[in-house]
């Protein structure tokens, strides 16, 4: 049976982690490579890097990070943030990432998903979606609207429609982030997660709101997500990935336990 995945997310700016990460006493705090390696050894099933480097000229720094990560960890990892073209995708994949994730650029230019899938295969192309709960309207009949720039800009697009469209264009996976749940630690937006998971036949990664391991169990069961993204609950040492997976296993969620 296919395992549900637990995926830590690392935010990187100019080649360094943006948040202080306290879990591991003996790693270089702030080094994304050492941190990724530590999560790999703790049983992470995959790792997501989100590059928030502001300047496009400094993107080579991230490619160097990707190359070092690929030489030290032997699980899949994806890189997102500022990916605007097939060439951006190519450079990330050639540096050793398994997948590349697109978000705002795909909202503005949906065909980017198709071009990426055609060039590298659907399995390489992840659509990142930021979603806001709204009053159901003509633009967003599901009550969930696509937003960009961390939620500041509403796009007048229905989240469910966008998920289906992305699948049709060739996205291999959707990373579904709830702006409402993000940062609350109250749990994932399960209604949204389930709606999108049921609407597509590609894996959905639940994102935003993780506060304890029970939330990951809920994302995998009632949310029907294939994977759960986590950040601060492991970065700040509240939980370990191994501990989270052990609890998921006890609750009957299939997870990878040998690493």
């Amino acid at each position: 049976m296919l395992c549900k995945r637990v995926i830590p997310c690392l935010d990187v700016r100019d080649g360094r982690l943006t948040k202080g990460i306290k879990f591991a006493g003996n790693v270089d705090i702030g080094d994304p490579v050492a941190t990724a390696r530590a999560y790999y050894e703790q049983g992470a099933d995959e790792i997501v890097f989100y590059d928030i480097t502001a300047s496009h000229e400094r993107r080579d720094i991230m490619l160097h990070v990707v190359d070092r990560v690929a030489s030290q960890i032997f699980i899949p990892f994806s890189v997102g943030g500022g990916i605007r073209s097939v060439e951006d995708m190519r450079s990330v994949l050639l540096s050793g990432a398994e997948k590349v994730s697109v978000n705002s650029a795909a909202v503005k230019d949906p065909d980017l998903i198709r071009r990426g899938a055609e060039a590298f295969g659907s399995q390489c192309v992840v659509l990142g979606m930021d979603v806001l709960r709204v009053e159901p309207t003509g633009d967003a009949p599901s009550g969930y609207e696509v937003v960009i720039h961390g939620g500041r800009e509403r796009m007048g697009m229905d989240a469910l429609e966008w998920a289906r469209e992305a699948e049709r264009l060739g996205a291999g996976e959707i990373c579904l982030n709830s702006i409402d749940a993000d940062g609350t630690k109250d749990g994932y937006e399960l209604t949204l997660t389930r709606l999108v998971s049921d609407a597509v036949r590609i894996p959905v990664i639940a994102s935003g709101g993780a506060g304890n391991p029970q939330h990951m169990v809920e994302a995998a069961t009632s949310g029907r997500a294939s994977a759960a993204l986590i950040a601060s609950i492991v970065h700040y040492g509240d939980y370990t990935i191994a501990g989270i997976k052990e609890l998921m296993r006890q609750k009957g969620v299939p997870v990878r336990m040998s690493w």
Partner: protein
Amino acid sequence: MIAIVDYEAGNLTSVKRGLDYLDIPCRITADAETIRQARGIIFPGVGAAGQAMRTLRRTGLDDLLRERVQRGVPLLGICLGSQILLQSTPENDTRGLELIPGHCRRFAPDLTEAGLPINIPHMGWNAVYGTDKAPFLFSGIGEGTEFYFVHAYYPVPAEPYWLTSTDYGTRFCSVLGREGLWAVQFHPEKSGRPGLALLNNFHDYCRKAH
């Protein structure tokens, strides 16, 4: 030296990175002489079977690989590489290298797991059972260990070549072949420590066979 066969079927650097990490000398190559000198061959691949087979025929690598296997050089197929070792695959209606009897099949869209329709491709970590049928390859790796898969087609070899099994809506063959000619449907280079252990076991076998 292990030859990682380059036949324009995807990015092969992740396999090389895995072997580099294990200090196993290797080369990504399409050169016949280099492949002849190798004490073992890794035949990876992602992408479409039709295009991959056309490249193999055009470059003559198809005959070379058959010749090396006949001479007893150990070979490890990975993912698409494992499917191409069979007689045929319905993907682009392609004839394979015919090194292992059998064919490939696509996951049927009506398959379910835990009552829900499966996603296709099969992507993620899944357990491998029956590893006692490939004892050398799985030396030190526990029964039911999970490996990382990404594939829409799966191999259906003749029964004696069906080594391990994995469940995804149906029970399919995840490792096929025989001693010295193995093919794995998963990606050992992306399967963490157990995957690296499997690559290391393959290298140990190559050293002994040499």
